[in-house]
């Protein structure tokens, strides 16, 4: 698959991992920050394996991984245009684009691929525009249509979900999508506030937030449709093996206004790190222990790790005691 890969330079995982916590306690909030620099893409050394996995899932589980409404096509072109322009202006070594009016030639130098198409003409691309551009980036891409003052899930390529389904959510309104979120969050009016906040996002002023959960083994595609494959692994966690089995899963979520369609692009870049690796950073070790120790049960249950929370705490406690006894 990889023929003439330009090398992706990067630091070790521990030095670039987006640790999501800033305090010793975690509760739901609108923890959005202005995104600076205002880019969609984060290209990491995992690019090749993640693109390969993405494309396999898109071929073998198409309905699970890509969904769209016909009225999202204009916005899909807008997303493709936005991402391609970012690709060639920020990563000119990896991608190039030649335009002659509506006739576009796109090259992915990392993968050694070339595609020619007519911008705006669906029949000139092998996939819908969002599905096409999604096959060249590590991020999952979701289009939220802003229709009559509400946000609807109108299209999405979702290969690496943290236990949610684009096939299930397609067409739902923002508040409906978030109904399963625990009452402490959804009952307090916070979902409405977040929705109102997204409705007011402006062009070229994107926002970002980290979301997180825990995943057993480094499995990116934890879709509800395949729960039977990854779900039972939760039963394998013990205080002894938690370091190798349990991964902190962080979603770098970004929100962009699409001024042509007046909708929103929601991108999700998922990062995984084993607890064993994570706690090599001493500050993170203590902070993560305090978070786990403090977390309310409804959040732990919603995030899906309540059944092995005690094992994680025990694992962390041993590592903390072990390190202080050495002192």
């Amino acid at each position: 698959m990889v023929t003439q890969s330009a090398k992706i330079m990067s630091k070790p995982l521990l030095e670039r991992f987006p640790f999501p916590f800033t305090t010793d306690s975690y509760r739901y909030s609108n923890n959005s920050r202005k995104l600076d620099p205002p880019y969609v893409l984060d290209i990491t050394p995992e690019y090749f394996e993640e693109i390969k996995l993405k494309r396999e899932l898109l071929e073998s589980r198409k309905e699970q991984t890509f969904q769209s409404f016909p009225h999202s096509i204009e916005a899909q072109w807008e997303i493709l245009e936005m991402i391609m322009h970012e690709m060639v202006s920020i990563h000119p070594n990896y991608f190039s684009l030649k335009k002659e009016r509506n006739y576009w030639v796109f090259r992915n130098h990392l993968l050694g691929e070339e595609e020619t198409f007519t911008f705006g003409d669906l029949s000139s691309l092998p996939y819908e525009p969002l599905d096409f551009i999604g096959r060249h980036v590590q991020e999952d891409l979701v289009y939220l249509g802003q229709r009559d003052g509400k946000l609807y899930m109108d299209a999405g390529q979702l290969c690496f979900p943290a236990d949610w389904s684009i096939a299930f959510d397609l067409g739902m309104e923002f508040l409906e999508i978030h109904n399963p979120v625990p009452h402490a969050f959804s009952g307090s009016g916070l979902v409405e506030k977040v929705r109102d906040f997204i409705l007011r996002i402006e062009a070229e002023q994107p926002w970002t937030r980290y979301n997180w959960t825990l995943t057993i083994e480094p499995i990116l595609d934890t879709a509800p449709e395949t729960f039977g494959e990854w779900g039972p692994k939760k039963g394998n966690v013990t205080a002894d093996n938690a370091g190798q089995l349990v991964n902190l899963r962080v979603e770098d979520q970004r929100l962009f206004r699409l001024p042509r369609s007046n909708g929103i692009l929601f991108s999700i870049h998922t990062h995984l790190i084993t607890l064993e690796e994570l706690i090599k950073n001493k500050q993170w070790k203590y902070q993560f222990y305090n978070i786990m120790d403090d977390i309310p049960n409804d959040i732990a249950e919603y995030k899906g790790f309540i059944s092995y929370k005690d094992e994680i705490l025990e694992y962390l406690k041993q590592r903390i005691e072990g390190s202080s006894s050495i002192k």
Partner: protein
Amino acid sequence: MSGNTIDVVVEEIRCESPQVKSFKLKPIDTSRLLRCGGGSHVKTYVQIDQNIYENNYSLINDPDQSDYYQIAIRRNDESKGGSICWHDRIKEGDQLKISYPKNHFALSFSAKHHILIAAGIGITPFIAMAADLRKKGKSFELHYAARSKELCAFYSFLNSVYPDETKFYFSEEGNRMTTDLMKNQPIGTHVYFCGPERMINEYSESAKSYGYPDTNIHFELFVPPDFGPMEPFQVKLNRSNKVLEVPEGETLLDTLLNHGIDAPYSCKIGGCGSCQVDVLDGEVDHRDFFLTDKEKQEKSVICTCISRAKTKNGSIVLDL
């Protein structure tokens, strides 16, 4: 100046009527501008001597245009000076900053039929909206009132591009536009108004009385409506633990900004909701057009750019 800006050069100035000029703005540093949907506007920043004039103007170019933006401005002798600067001082080749496009006047997705109603320079947002509707194959009609054909900007353009959809009303010819045009329209019709405050109020009230739901009524104001006196009041800032006096005649937003508080804002006329802040205590005199009546009753928020404390010398507590 809030937010990012784009440096542009005035490439072409055209007289669209004795009172209206249009300005074609080309980007300087970047090869392309963002395409933006009908109803979008930009804020322009014009510096003349020591003053910077901030004004919002609708984009009248085609929504898929990506190498220039175009705005149209009516010279308003009563204005604070923005339109006069544009008319009297700006020349082709001048450079200025504009904001990225924003859209507080978006077309409805679900409407079965769109009625665009313009008075005077209120025509500007509808030029791009009509183009958008045409491209999407949607059903619409455009009603445009002006004093006379000579004073009617974009008359020949609209007449040639949208002859079937456009209806003109020239008061000097005794042909006045009335709210009757909104009667007997199909269910699912949305109405859009742009013009002076008086006209918007009249058309909103009539639309409601004809049975249009609130959600089907859209309008855009470019100047803040007159709500009577701006009495002084006190504001307590909970997070930064400060107490500020908002003087008579000054907006709460300006007081916050003058004291170095990083308060959000955009339109500054109570239309976009960007400046909303949570109110922890105190009663609010809501003067904005963003919150619905229900939200004004139920939500504890204030649009700082226009709303004030309910009583003279009253006090409100903000989550800032």
